[in-house]
C-alpha cells in the first residue's frame, strides 16, 4: 500500500470515527427535545402535576445527552483544517457560510433557551418556559439544517463557480444551495429519523421501568407520547427516504447502483429486499451478483423513477455511459472513460492558467479559464487512472443500506404494536416481559439503523468528497500518514473513555430516579 493510500484511508477512518461518534448524540437531541416539548405542552394545558414530573425526568435525560454531545462536532472542523486542507481551501465560503449561520443563529438560540429550560422553572412564567422548550427543539433542528446543507453540497455541488485565481469555489446562489433537492430530503430524512430514534429510546427505557415495576404510570404516559412521535417520525422517514432515492437516482446514480449491488440494470428493474452478495463478483465478469436474494419485481424502477417500466442503470452501465429507453433502444451518454479524459483536459487548462499566471500573461489566464469552464464538471475524474476507481465499496454500501431499510420496516411495525398495546391492551403492555425485552433490545438496533443510514450516504459517495469535482485522494493534506494514525488511536481512546463516563452518568440517573416517585416533581 503506498503512502497516499495509507494517508487517505487513515484520514477517512478518523473522519468516520468522529462523525459516527457525534451522530450517537445528535438524533436523540433532535427527537427527545420534541418529545419533552410535547410532554410540557400537555402539562401546560392540563396542569396535571404528574405530567410535570414526567417532563422533568425526560428533560434531565435530554440534558445529559446534550452535554454528552457538546463539542463532539467541533473535532470534525479540526480535521478539515489539518487532514483535509486541500478540500477546506477548495470549498471556499460554501462550507463556511452555512456553518457560520449554524454557530451564530441556531447554536446560540439553542444554548440560550436550554438555560431557561433547566433553570427557569420557578423563575419565568409557565408560558415563557414552554416557549423556551419548544425553541430549544426548533433550535436543535435549525442547527442540523445548516450542517446538512453543507453536507448536501458535497453530494450535489450547486450554487457556486470555481475561481482559479483563488483556487476555491465561490458561492453565487445561496438559495440554490439551501433549496437543493438533496438538502431538503436530507434535512427531513435526518431530523425525522431522530424522532424515530428518540421514540424507541423513550419506549425502551419506559419498558425497563415496567419490567422493574417502578413508576408504571410515568412509563405508560411516556410510551404514549413517544409512540406517536416515533410513528410520525418513521412514516415521514420512509416517505423522505423514498424522495431521497429518487434524488440519488438523478444526481448520484452510482451510489444507487452500489446500494442495490446492481451491475447491469434493465427496464422494470427489481429491487433486492434481502440478499447476500457474491464475494467473488468483480466488475465486468459473468459471476452472479448474489448468493441468495429475495427481490420485488419492478421495485427499483418504482423507487428510483416512479414508474414500473423505467430503466435503472447498474454500475457497468454507468461506467459505459449507457441508458436504455422503455422501447429498448440504447442511448449513449458520457462514459467514465470520457469523463476521465475531460477531467484531465480540465487539469491541463488549470496548468495553462498557472503558467500564464506565473508569466503575468493576463490574456492567457482568461483563455485558460474559459477552457477550464468547459470541462470543470468533470474536474475530479482527472485524478483516476482507471474507471474502477470511481466505484464505491459495493458490499459496505449494499449491506448498510439494507440494514437501514430492514430495521426501518421493523420500527414501523414496532410502533404500531406498541401503540396498539398501550391503548388497547394496557395490562399486557404493563406486564408482558416479552414486549419489554423487545423494546429494550430495540434501543441499540435503532442506533445501528441510524448509523447505517449515514454509512450508506457517505460510503456511497466515495471516492468523492465533492461529487464529480474532488476525490478523497486529492482532498487530503500533504502530511505524514503516521500522524493521522496516531490521532486516530488517540480519538479511539478518548471517545471510548468519554462515552463510557457519559453513558454511566445517564444510566445512574435513570436508575436512581426509577427508585423515586418520578411524578412527585417539585
Amino acid at each position, binding site marked *: 500500500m503506498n503512502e497516499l493510500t495509507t494517508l487517505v484511508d487513515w484520514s477517512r477512518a478518523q473522519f468516520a470515527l468522529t462523525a459516527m461518534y457525534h451522530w450517537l448524540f445528535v438524533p436523540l437531541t433532535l427527537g427527545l427535545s420534541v418529545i419533552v416539548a410535547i410532554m410540557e405542552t400537555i402539562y401546560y394545558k392540563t396542569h396535571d402535576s404528574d405530567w410535570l414530573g414526567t417532563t422533568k425526568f425526560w428533560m434531565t435525560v435530554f440534558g445529559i445527552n446534550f452535554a454528552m454531545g457538546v463539542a463532539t462536532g467541533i*473535532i470534525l472542523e479540526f480535521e478539515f483544517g489539518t487532514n483535509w486542507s486541500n478540500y477546506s481551501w477548495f470549498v471556499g465560503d460554501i462550507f463556511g457560510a452555512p456553518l457560520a449561520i449554524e454557530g451564530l443563529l441556531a447554536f446560540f438560540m439553542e444554548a440560550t433557551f436550554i438555560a431557561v429550560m433547566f433553570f427557569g422553572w420557578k423563575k419565568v412564567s409557565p408560558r415563557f418556559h414552554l416557549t423556551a422548550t419548544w425553541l430549544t427543539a426548533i433550535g436543535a433542528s435549525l442547527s442540523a439544517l445548516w450542517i446538512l446543507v453543507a453536507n448536501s453540497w458535497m453530494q450535489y455541488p450547486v450554487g457556486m463557480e470555481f475561481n482559479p485565481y483563488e483556487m476555491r469555489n465561490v458561492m453565487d446562489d445561496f438559495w440554490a444551495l439551501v433549496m437543493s433537492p438533496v438538502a431538503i430530503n436530507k434535512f427531513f430524512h435526518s431530523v425525522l429519523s431522530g424522532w424515530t430514534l428518540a421514540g424507541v429510546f423513550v419506549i425502551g427505557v419506559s419498558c425497563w421501568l415496567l419490567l422493574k415495576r417502578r413508576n408504571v404510570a410515568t412509563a405508560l404516559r411516556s410510551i404514549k407520547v413517544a409512540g406517536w412521535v416515533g410513528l410520525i417520525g418513521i412514516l415521514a422517514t420512509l416517505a423522505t427516504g423514498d424522495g431521497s432515492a429518487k434524488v440519488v437516482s438523478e444526481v448520484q446514480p452510482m451510489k444507487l447502483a452500489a446500494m442495490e449491488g446492481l451491475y447491469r440494470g434493465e427496464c422494470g428493474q427489481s429491487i433486492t429486499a434481502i440478499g447476500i452478495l457474491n464475494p467473488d463478483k468483480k466488475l465486468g465478469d459473468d459471476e452472479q451478483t448474489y448468493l441468495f436474494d429475495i427481490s420485488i419485481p419492478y421495485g427499483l424502477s418504482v423507487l428510483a423513477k416512479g414508474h414500473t417500466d423505467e430503466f435503472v442503470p447498474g454500475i457497468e452501465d454507468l461506467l459505459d455511459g449507457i441508458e436504455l429507453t422503455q422501447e429498448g433502444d440504447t442511448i449513449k451518454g458520457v462514459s467514465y472513460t470520457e469523463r476521465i479524459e475531460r477531467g484531465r483536459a480540465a487539469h491541463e487548462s488549470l496548468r495553462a492558467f498557472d503558467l500564464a499566471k506565473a508569466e503575468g500573461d493576463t490574456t492567457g489566464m482568461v483563455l485558460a479559464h474559459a477552457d477550464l469552464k468547459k470541462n470543470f464538471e468533470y474536474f475530479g475524474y482527472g485524478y483516476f487512472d482507471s474507471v474502477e476507481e470511481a466505484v464505491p465499496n459495493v458490499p459496505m454500501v449494499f449491506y448498510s443500506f439494507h440494514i437501514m431499510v430492514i430495521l426501518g420496516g421493523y420500527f414501523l411495525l414496532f410502533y404500531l404494536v406498541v401503540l396498539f398495546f398501550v391503548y388497547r391492551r394496557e395490562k399486557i403492555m404493563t406486564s408482558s416481559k416479552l414486549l419489554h425485552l423487545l423494546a429494550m433490545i430495540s434501543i441499540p438496533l435503532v442506533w445501528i439503523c441510524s448509523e447505517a443510514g449515514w454509512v450508506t450516504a457517505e460510503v456511497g459517495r466515495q471516492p468523492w468528497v465533492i461529487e464529480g469535482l474532488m476525490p478523497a485522494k486529492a482532498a487530503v493534506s500533504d502530511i505524514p500518514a503516521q500522524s493521522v494514525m496516531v490521532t486516530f488511536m488517540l480519538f479511539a481512546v478518548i471517545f471510548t473513555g468519554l462515552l463510557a463516563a457519559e453513558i454511566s*452518568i445517564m444510566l445512574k440517573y435513570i436508575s436512581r430516579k426509577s427508585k423515586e416517585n418520578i411524578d412527585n416533581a417539585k
Partner: protein
Amino acid sequence: MNFLRRVIDLYVDGFRNMTVGRSLWLLILIKLFLFFVVLKLFFFPNFLAKEYSTDEARAQHVRTELLEDK
C-alpha cells in the same frame, strides 16, 4: 437593569442548585480541555495557516497539490 439582574439570578441559582448537572459540567470541562487545549494545540494545527502566511501562498500550494500526479 432589573431584567439583567433576573437573567444573572437565573444562571447563578441554576448553577447553585444543580444535581446531575455538576457531574455533567465537570465532564464538559474535561472534554473542552481535551479538545481545545490538547487536541487542537498539539495535534490539529490548521495546515495551510501554519505553513503559509498569505492567502495567495495558500492558493498556490493548493493549486500545486491539485495538479500533482496522485
